[in-house]
């Protein structure tokens, strides 16, 4: 898996963070970037936990990403190296939660993270009070998860 270099961010680990986020969340790097919060989240983690812990996670992620040549390989490597390891799993859970809900350990990262949470798209909903679905949206039938 090639880690795409993202311009204007002079930090190699940031690219690792985005690439592993892509695998952990199931959203493409472009979709993650379009929340406008990628750099903010990255910096937020750096400010919240010990840098060494975060670097360790990123180094593990980097190894996984560089040594996986197919999606299956990558999935297996993530299962074995990240999900199976309690410390790594905690970290990945926090990162997934941050992308999906916009919160880090229960608190919103900033005032945008609520409305840019990925959870709203997944459940075909909208963040109440932030991104209104628009006129006549009440005429659209809810998504049926059983169909």
């Amino acid at each position, binding site marked *: 898996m090639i880690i795409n270099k993202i311009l204007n961010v002079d930090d190699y680990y940031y690219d690792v963070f985005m690439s592993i986020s892509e695998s952990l969340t199931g959203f493409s790097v472009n979709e993650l970037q379009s929340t406008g919060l990628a750099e903010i989240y990255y910096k937020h983690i750096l400010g919240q936990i010990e840098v060494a812990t975060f670097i360790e996670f990123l180094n593990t992620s980097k190894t996984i990403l560089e040594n996986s040549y197919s999606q299956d390989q990558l999935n297996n490597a993530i299962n074995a190296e990240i999900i199976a390891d309690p410390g790594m799993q905690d970290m990945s859970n926090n990162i997934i939660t941050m992308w999906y809900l916009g*919160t880090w350990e229960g608190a*919103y990262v900033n*005032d*945008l993270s609520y*409305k840019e949470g990925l959870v709203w798209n997944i459940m075909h909903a909208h963040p109440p009070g932030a991104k209104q679905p628009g006129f006549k949206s009440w005429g659209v039938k809810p998504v049926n998860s059983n169909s």
Partner: protein
Amino acid sequence: MSQQNNSLPKKDVIIVGTGIAGSLIAKLLTDHVFDTKKGKMVYRTEVEQPEDARELSVLMFEAGLEAGLELDSASSLTTYNEYIRKFYMEEAKVPNSPYPNL
């Protein structure tokens, strides 16, 4: 012996907050008068003897600009944005979430 303060006459009803609910309560109350003959509240128009009717005295309290929007457009936008930001940052989003704790 309590010192009687006559500067503020005694009120029958005190309404705290002049939002939608407070205003509706005030309207409903002042649409009625107390009929001393019948011993109950009646509609203003249903009073038979005007000398029997007693007006209600209603006092309304309002926190004003501390909780509400400023009346000039520049600062009302600022306050509005602060409310929005606070609402987005609150973990539990309830009707009172946007407003400051007074």
